[in-house]
């Protein structure tokens, strides 16, 4: 059994957890993060990545809206390379109640969100695919944020400042001494037990926070609400499009990197279902139908995959449900609530309020540790976002390498592109042809970004996230693991198979048209040509 000591333990490697880890390491507090899967594998990697302007909340939840616009402005500065400042539209279609439009404008003003009315003609000029049934439109400072890059950048910065991260290590016990929690016991993939002792334990396990409290002997009730989303093969829109009506299913289409995402549905589920919930057929229908109202072309496009996430909302008042429940940040000092010293829970909030959540948590930690250290994360850019450099300049710098490749690598890693690309042909040859991921980027990720398998690699680079969903890149990536990470050929094959299973799961809900043809070809290649079906353990065979 391994045994460590540190000042603060952070449970959960989502945006919140890694955000806290970074904040602590900047303040100079020794910290260790424990994540049971990969970073950003929880709710953080399962949303549509809207960098809210706050307009979506302005009408019903002014406080959240104000929080959003404040963080929106901060993140646009410190996390440039994780954000694309697309702007957003709220459109009223002819059968929507136009009163909501006026209400929205009024409440945005109150919240300090710059919302301006534009004519339907102007809206169509900005977004030519927009429905011609648009009656009214409002422009807001919405943007998109990539949760994987955001989490990864927080991790890189924290680790470079001395923090530790254990992924694929699950916390299964809170060690207590009297009434106080003093450490955790966790278990890793190799079934090794690890004990870590610390002054303070942070429960940043999102929706799983209920479970963490449970093993600490504390009752905490989460209200799991599932949201499903559908990914479209390419960008049908280059600006965030919101339906101007009270929040409902399928009322937003977000352009995320090379794709567009229709979001979302909202379904209450039981807490014991949170680890195996799937996208239901009726949700896909709802999303497509509503998406089509906004962008009529959408039905002619290819659905790439569908996925769902669970909103980590906490039952505070116990009355309001689903979408109308407050997205507010909940910070609990369990000493005050339950008399247990050393445990803090942070939950609620949003992806884009992760920094604020981290700030609040770390302020509380500092108070408890009696350290007078100030938060600076609102000023200190994330690694990769240090300077404002236009893509054009970087493309020019790497002239000789295709602009599409340089531009995409820069888009994903910001200034760290200089640690990735070289003019060596082997370095910039493409491994993932759909998302333009080079061999150099994969080498960089495997060596520097805490990557354990191809799915982790996907979260760091977008490999396998394009139209072919791993058809051409998966086996190449498996080979590179063998080359750089000294996995054995057998281990690499296992990684390949797991990755294909993971991709397959997200494609299943959208089995039609070109996507179906694509997966058929993939199946032929891997099952027929490579004989992958005969490999490995038989318990995954039935999938």
């Amino acid at each position: 059994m391994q045994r460590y000591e540190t000042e603060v333990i952070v449970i959960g490697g989502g945006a919140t957890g890694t955000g806290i880890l970074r904040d602590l390491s900047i303040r100079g507090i020794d910290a260790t993060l424990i994540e049971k899967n990969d970073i950003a594998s929880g709710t953080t990697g399962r949303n549509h990545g809207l960098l809210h302007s706050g307009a979506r909340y302005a009408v019903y939840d002014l406080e959240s809206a104000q929080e959003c616009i404040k963080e929106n402005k901060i993140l646009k500065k410190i996390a440039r390379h994780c954000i694309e400042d697309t702007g957003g539209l709220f459109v009223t279609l002819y059968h929507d109640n136009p009163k909501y439009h006026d209400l929205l404008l009024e409440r945005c003003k109150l919240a300090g969100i710059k919302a301006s009315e534009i004519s339907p003609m102007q809206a169509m000029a900005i977004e030519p695919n927009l429905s011609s049934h648009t009656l009214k439109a409002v422009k807001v400072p919405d943007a998109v944020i990539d949760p994987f890059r955001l989490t990864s950048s927080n991790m890189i910065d924290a680790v470079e400042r001395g923090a530790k991260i254990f992924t694929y290590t699950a916390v299964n016990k809170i060690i207590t001494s009297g009434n106080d929690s003093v450490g955790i016991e966790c278990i890793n993939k190799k079934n090794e037990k690890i004990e870590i002792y610390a002054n303070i334990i942070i429960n940043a396990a999102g929706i799983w926070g209920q479970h963490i409290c449970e093993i600490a002997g504390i009752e905490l009730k989460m209200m799991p609400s599932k949201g499903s989303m559908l990914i479209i093969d390419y960008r049908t829109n280059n600006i965030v499009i919101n339906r101007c009506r009270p929040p409902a299913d399928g009322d937003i289409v977000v352009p995320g990197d090379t794709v567009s995402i229709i979001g979302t549905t909202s379904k209450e589920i039981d807490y014991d279902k949170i680890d195996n919930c799937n996208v239901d057929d009726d949700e896909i229908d709802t999303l497509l139908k509503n998406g089509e109202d906004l962008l009529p072309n959408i039905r002619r496009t290819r659905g790439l995959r569908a996925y769902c996430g669970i909103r980590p909302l906490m039952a505070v008042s116990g009355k309001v449900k689903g979408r109308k429940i407050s997205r507010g940040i909940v910070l609990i000092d369990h000493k005050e609530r339950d008399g247990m010293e050393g445990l803090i829970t942070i939950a609620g909030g949003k992806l884009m309020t992760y920094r604020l959540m981290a700030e609040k948590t770390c302020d509380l930690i500092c108070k408890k540790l009696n350290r007078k250290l100030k938060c600076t994360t609102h000023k200190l850019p994330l690694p990769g976002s240090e300077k404002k450099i236009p893509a054009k300049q970087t493309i020019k710098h790497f002239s000789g390498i295709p602009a599409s490749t340089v531009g995409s690598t820069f888009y994903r890693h910001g200034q760290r592109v200089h640690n990735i690309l070289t003019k060596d042909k082997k370095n910039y040859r493409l491994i993932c042809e759909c998302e333009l991921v080079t061999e150099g980027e994969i080498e960089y990720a495997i060596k520097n970004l805490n990557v354990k398998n191809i799915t982790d690699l996907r979260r760091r680079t977008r490999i396998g996230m394009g139209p072919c969903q791993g058809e051409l890149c998966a086996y190449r990536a498996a080979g590179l693991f063998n080359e750089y990470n000294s996995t054995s050929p057998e281990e690499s094959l296992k990684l390949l198979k797991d990755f294909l299973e993971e991709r397959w799961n997200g494609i299943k809900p959208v089995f039609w048209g070109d996507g179906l043809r694509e997966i058929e070809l993939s199946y032929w290649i891997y099952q027929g040509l490579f004989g992958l079906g005969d490999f490995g353990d038989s318990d995954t065979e039935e999938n």
Partner: protein
Amino acid sequence: MIKLQNISFDHCIKCTICNVYCPVARVSLFPGPKQSGPDTERFRIKSPELVDSTLKLCSNCKRCEIACPSNVKIADIIQEAKWKYLKRRWFRPRDLILSRTDLMGKFATLFNSIVNFFTRRSIVKFFLYLFIGIPYQKTLPEYENGTFEKHFYKNYPDQNKFPDHVVFFHGCFVNYNNHKLGRDLVKVLNSLNVGVNLVKEKCCGVPLIANGYINKAKKNAQYNINSLSEIHEKSNFKIVSTSSSCTYALKNEYSNLLNLDNSAISNEIEYITKFIYDRFESGNIFKMKPVPLRAAYHSPCHLERLGGVIYTIDLLKRIPGLDLVILHSECCGIAGTYGFKKEYYKLSQDIGKDLFRSIETANPEIVITDCETCALQIEMNTQFKVLHPVNILAMAVKE
């Protein structure tokens, strides 16, 4: 965001078959149709900054489109991206000259002997190379004295006497550079009791599209659509062309690439050998005399794309005495005006190398091909004379 006209890239299943058939990717750093077409189209939609300069290496031969099992209009996507996103560096006299085949033709046919005299001189070629970038190794097409149109109205006043009729879209090459082909066509069609009619036409636009003069191409295309649909509406005549590239443009590119409505004529246009094949099949065959020649047949890219090669081969096979070698289908490398640019000269030669070699191996007396620029390329790179299938058919007509 742009309103996309061509969303066929979304049907690509990444099978990579197209790459195998791309003649340019085989001999250069061009990343191939898959990468340049459907793959990076998603990135160009995201941000025009992500456009690759290698797009310009695509010769628009369309072999990728023939190979694609998903009906992705790969070459169209690339052409569109080329002229939409790649800024042309500055005004280029060379591109203008190469793309304005009609203007050049009008001028040169007036002073053809002088123009031909000069373009044959190596010193002139040297200056052409130096100043406007036309490779000096290239033989420039020779010009005729006057236009085919003029000759036609003077020499064939009696076309009304035939029971059947077609409209002949002669294109620039017949009009300015190769009257013989036009005359042979009239001869062959007349022997089938079909009268030939001309209408007002402009350059079909292929060289304009290739050089990025899209507005001019659109103007020409609209002119041709109007003029051809007018006569077709009145007379119900079919329209034929002896140029595979003109035919492809009129039939497909006007709508796919230039986004014009050519539905009134697109089904009425036929490449000439298909038209003659249909007559032959319905029993309307002229009497043939033997043409005792050993000939190698090269199938041009755009005729392959049209699916018209089988008709040409079928006609040639019917000619008694003709000893026909059908060459493996390959791009000759000229691709219209592509091979006339010094930056692509070497590439164009490399692409065509295998074809030239297989022609030499076949050891024919003549080469037959349907495309005017393929003919130029082959004549330049082998010692053989190149004829059009219609020339051979005319030789077989027994008067």
